[in-house]
């Protein structure tokens, strides 16, 4: 919507407020002189319906019962109208009022007039009671610069002109003050400015709640990186998820919920993005004058020659999936944007390989479209005569081209308990290719979001609370609407219900609970019946449940689904079955925004989203790591066996036999979506919602033009008027007794006695001391309720009152800081003095002879000491030498002893032997002598 431009603050302030400077309408009223006031009173101006302008001003001539004669101001034509058609005009001092809840006469005409007047003056934001309305300016306004951010920082809503920054500031402040999670819900039609405003919220929060302060303490550089990455998340998501449509050059084709987490001190500690319903069919087919996602064109225009060769890229008109060839977007350069996207990805911490892999997959998605099949002459089978495209594709995705061809043309399908090879018709093969291309792109997008979340999720510091920003497609009503529109409209129905619930139901319930005098107003805005019609699981089953059921039913078609739906829900007040013959709408649902005609063609396929699981598992096993990562979950897809071959008309029909057990094994698109929506709603319900209603002024993307009927329709759909009404009639501000006392006791110094007093009594005493008009407040059971604006007034007085204390505190704080700095200065001074003293001493000594002698001699002293050292060392050496000789001697002696001992042993042994021999000899001698004796005796 805008890009920061130069210009002084005064210049810019002009864009923010209507001449009279920020403040109440009365401050600007001086411009509208007494003359115009008198004019208004004299002419009795009113609004009358007009074909061209929505409403025209006229003056009343005569009132007759139920009829009124008026003269149109512009052309002086006299008209008679019924009283109901005439709407009262506000006094001129309310011209361009900043909060439409201030208007004296609240009616459609006045609201439209006010919005239009403001819009023509470049004032695109307007409060309407509790929420904010913004009209897309279709041009850059200089109201989003850093200096403007600074202007809104710390300000209360009523202190500054309406702005998205004021909404963000209010959410941030109440998050810190009440410690309650916040959400900012941007809703509106496509092209109304939801995404731009979402970005501004993030810009504001990243600026205000950044823990990275220039040159401040403790917080390091890396902390600023998180804020930078947070700001870069959007450009990346936009490149992959936004496209040019007829209505909007940068239309978000997905919904997102960005959750920014803060720590207790209010600093950003991380973020998380959740996306909803990517319009993946855009990747393969686009309507006339529309484009597919930006990244495709960016890649084709911006890639370097080298990348082009690597990714086998061609020109835009060489791809069948780019229906319109290359369509430039006015004022945008795809190749420049490509560089920006790549830069953003680098800041986000994507590695070069990751970026390249992503681009490769992009190229592959395009390449899918160039695979073409022909029908064989004799039978229905499809064949692929030219496999150039398939080869390129398989190269990009890292799979085998033969296996791929087989998986596409003759996949293995489970029939009963066996697998058979089933030849595919041309229609089936074409369908499979498109489904694969869509699934590939969707998985790439999911991976991208996951990757961004990983970069933004810093768990170093504990998150304490969060602000969630929801940017989701608004109501879509086309001539004929399909499943996607049902999902989007269902979402909006739920969001509107949340809005109504908080604004009207909860509000009034609280009045009753608190025992406040209140007549329950039924705004007729309970959307539950319509929601039930869509999401109710049973008794009777709603649209989604019936669709799921039909998906599991043998031989079911889109027609049988419609029949079943009419049978079950035919009497539902929000359901309408057209009596027209086929070809037109199958049924209609009366949404809060109007009657929407739905055509049920292909709903079963869309809900099941079947995929050729043969190819899926090939991709799962791809040699390319990135591709196999994308396809790591393949078990939950609806495979070919769930889709029976084409016996009936159309490329695919449903209801293969033996599917009863399959139910629940995988999830339908409807189921998954309903689940994520329920989760989102649960999150939102636990937050304090801040609503931003985005309005598209015309369908021509033209600045300064406001089509009255278009805007009126949106105001009615959005419940803007009802919102204002309850804000005026009700008590939109409430505050618990305890908090009221704690916060405002300062305004009533002596109202409450020092002794204990219960909250209600104390609050009542305080209120009577404040001398408030009885109509401005109500005292409930636990809270005090105020009419719009009263609390803001009290808050102002309180600020005034505490300012004095704050100034005292601030001067004490400044004193503290100054003393700290002074102490440091003094320490530096004394350090300096120590140095000076030393220098001084040196200078004095420098020329003193003895000192010079000393400095000369000092090194010599070292020398004498060296001699001593040498002596000691030598002594040590000597000792060691002696020891060594002694040791050697000992060793030598040892050896000698051992040798001698051995000799001794040898001798001993010899001796023993000799003795033995001697004994033997003596024995022989004995024997011989005996023999001699015996012989001599015989003789």
């Amino acid at each position: 919507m805008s890009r920061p431009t130069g210009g002084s603050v005064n210049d810019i302030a002009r864009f923010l407020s209507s001449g009279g400077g920020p403040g109440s309408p009365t401050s600007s009223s001086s411009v509208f002189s007494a003359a115009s006031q008198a004019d208004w009173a004299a002419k009795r101006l009113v609004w009358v319906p007009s074909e061209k302008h929505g409403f025209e001003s006229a003056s009343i001539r005569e009132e007759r019962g139920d009829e009124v004669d008026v003269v149109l101001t512009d052309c002086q034509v006299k008209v008679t109208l019924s009283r109901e058609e005439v709407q009262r005009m506000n006094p001129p001092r309310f011209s361009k009022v900043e909060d439409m809840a201030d208007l004296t006469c609240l009616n459609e005409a006045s609201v439209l007039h006010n919005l239009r007047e403001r819009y023509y003056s470049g004032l695109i934001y307007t409060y309407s009671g509790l929420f904010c309305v913004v009209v897309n300016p279709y041009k850059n306004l200089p109201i989003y610069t850093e200096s403007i951010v600074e202007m809104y920082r710390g300000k209360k809503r009523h202190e500054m002109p309406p702005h998205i920054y004021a909404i963000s500031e209010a959410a941030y402040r109440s998050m810190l003050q009440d410690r309650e999670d916040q959400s900012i819900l941007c809703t509106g039609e496509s092209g109304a400015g939801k995404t731009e405003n979402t970005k501004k919220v993030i810009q504001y929060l990243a600026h205000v709640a950044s823990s990275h302060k220039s040159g401040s303490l403790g917080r390091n550089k890396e902390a600023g990186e998180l804020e930078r990455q947070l700001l870069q998340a959007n450009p990346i998501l936009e490149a992959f998820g936004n496209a040019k449509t007829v209505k909007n050059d940068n239309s978000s084709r997905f919904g997102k919920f960005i959750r920014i987490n803060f720590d207790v001190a209010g600093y950003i500690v991380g973020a998380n993005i959740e996306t909803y319903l990517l319009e993946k069919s855009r990747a393969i087919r686009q309507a006339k004058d529309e484009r597919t996602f930006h990244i495709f064109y960016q890649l084709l225009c911006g890639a370097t020659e080298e990348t082009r060769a690597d990714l086998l890229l061609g020109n835009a008109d060489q791809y069948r999936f780019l229906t319109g060839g290359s369509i430039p977007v006015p004022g945008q350069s795809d190749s420049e944007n490509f560089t920006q996207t790549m830069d953003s990805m680098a800041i986000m911490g994507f590695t070069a390989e990751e970026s390249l892999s992503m681009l490769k997959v992009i190229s592959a998605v395009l390449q899918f479209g160039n695979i073409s099949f022909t029908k064989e002459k004799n039978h229905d089978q499809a064949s692929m005569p030219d496999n150039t495209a398939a080869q390129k594709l398989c190269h990009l995705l890292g799979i085998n081209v033969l296996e791929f061809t087989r998986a596409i043309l003759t996949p293995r399908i489970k029939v009963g308990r066996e697998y058979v090879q089933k030849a595919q018709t041309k229609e089936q093969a074409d369908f499979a290719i498109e489904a694969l291309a869509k699934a590939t792109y969707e998985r790439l997008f999911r991976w991208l979001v996951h990757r961004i979340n990983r970069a933004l999720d810093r768990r170093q510091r504990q998150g304490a609370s969060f602000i969630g920003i929801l940017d989701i497609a608004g109501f879509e009503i086309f001539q004929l609407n399909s499943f996607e529109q049902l999902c989007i409209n269902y979402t909006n129905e739920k969001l509107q219900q949340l809005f109504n619930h908080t604004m009207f139901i909860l509000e009034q319930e609280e009045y009753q609970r608190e025992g406040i005098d209140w007549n329950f107003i039924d705004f007729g805005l309970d959307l539950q019946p319509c929601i039930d019609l869509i999401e109710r699981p049973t008794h009777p089953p709603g649209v989604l449940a019936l669709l799921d059921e039909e998906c599991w039913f043998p031989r079911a078609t889109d027609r049988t689904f419609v029949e079943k739906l009419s049978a079950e829900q035919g009497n539902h007040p929000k359901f309408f079955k057209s009596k027209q013959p086929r070809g037109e709408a199958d049924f209609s649902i009366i949404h809060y925004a109007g009657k929407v005609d739905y055509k049920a063609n292909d709903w079963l396929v869309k809900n099941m989203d079947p995929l050729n699981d043969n190819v899926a598992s090939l991709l799962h096993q791809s040699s390319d790591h990135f591709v196999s990562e994308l396809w790591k979950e393949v078990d939950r897809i609806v495979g070919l066996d769930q889709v029976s071959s084409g016996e009936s008309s159309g490329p695919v029909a449903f209801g293969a036999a033996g599917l009863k057990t399959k139910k629940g094994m995988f999830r339908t698109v409807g189921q998954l979506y309903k689940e994520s929506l329920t989760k989102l709603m649960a999150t939102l319900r636990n937050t304090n919602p801040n609503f931003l209603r985005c309005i598209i002024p015309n369908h021509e993307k033209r600045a300064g033009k406001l089509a009255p009927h278009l805007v009126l329709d949106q105001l009615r759909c959005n419940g803007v008027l009802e919102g204002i009404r309850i804000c005026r009639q009700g008590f939109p501000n409430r505050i618990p007794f305890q908090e009221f006392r704690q916060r405002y006791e300062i305004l009533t110094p002596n109202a409450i006695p020092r002794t204990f007093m219960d909250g209600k009594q104390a609050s009542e005493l305080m209120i009577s001391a404040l001398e408030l008009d009885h109509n401005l407040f109500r005292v409930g059971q636990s809270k005090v309720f105020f009419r719009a604006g009263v609390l803001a007034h009290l808050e102002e007085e309180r600020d005034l009152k505490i300012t004095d204390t704050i100034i005292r505190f601030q001067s004490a704080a400044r004193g503290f800081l100054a003393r700290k700095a002074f102490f440091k200065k003094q320490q530096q001074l004394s350090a300096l003095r120590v140095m000076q003293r030393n220098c001084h001493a040196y200078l004095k000594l420098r020329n003193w002879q003895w000192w010079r002698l000393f400095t000369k001699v000092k090194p010599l002293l070292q020398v004498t000491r060296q001699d001593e050292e040498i002596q000691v060392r030598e002594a040590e050496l000597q000792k060691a030498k002696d020891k060594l000789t002694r040791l050697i001697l000992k060793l030598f002696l040892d050896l000698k002893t051992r040798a001698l001992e051995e000799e001794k042993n040898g001798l001993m042994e010899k001796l023993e032997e000799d003795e033995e021999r001697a004994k033997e000899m003596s024995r022989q001698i004995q024997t011989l002598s005996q023999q001699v004796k015996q012989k001599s005796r015989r003789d």
Partner: protein
Amino acid sequence: MAPKKDPKAPAKKAEPAPAPAPAPEPAPAPAAAPAIDLSAVKVEFSPDQVEDYREAFGLFDRVGDNKVAYNQIADIMRALGQNPTNKEVNKLLGNPSADDMASKRVEFEMFLPMLQTIINSPNKAGFEDYVEGLRVFDKEGNGTVMGAELRIVLSTLGEKMTEAEIDALMAGQEDENGCVNYEGESSINKEQFKKQELTLLGPFLTKYVTFYCKLL
């Protein structure tokens, strides 16, 4: 290093400063007058004090002409133990323009009566008001205030403080819940106080409280 006598000086100086305040003093120039007639202010500092002040004054002289810039006056007074508001100081200087603040200079003899005026000035805010003021931000009533809220208040109300000032002030003061304790160490005695004044905001606040007690 051995600082001789200087570091103890500020504490010493800080003390005698508030002391003369209770003495019944002929009120300085009436508040209504745009500029204050400094020549009418009776300076009653002891020679020792004057010497200390001169030394401190000299520390702020960046040029060497024995004068200091207008925009440093407030900081010198603060260094000497005073807590003047910016408005008070501006009034003393005759509400100079931003350019004058940076370019005009004051000599020591002119500074003394200014300091005396600040010391003499009657403080309207009392102890009760002060505690009441902080209690306004004390949601749980447990003697702590949210750092985040204090930051917002200090930067958006009154004599707005810059982010750098607030960061310096809050450095290390917030506990893991983001709270600043302002009552915790109120029983701390004077001696501990002198030692800790420079490290803890808690005692700093307490000192602030006692300062007010003295004035009452």
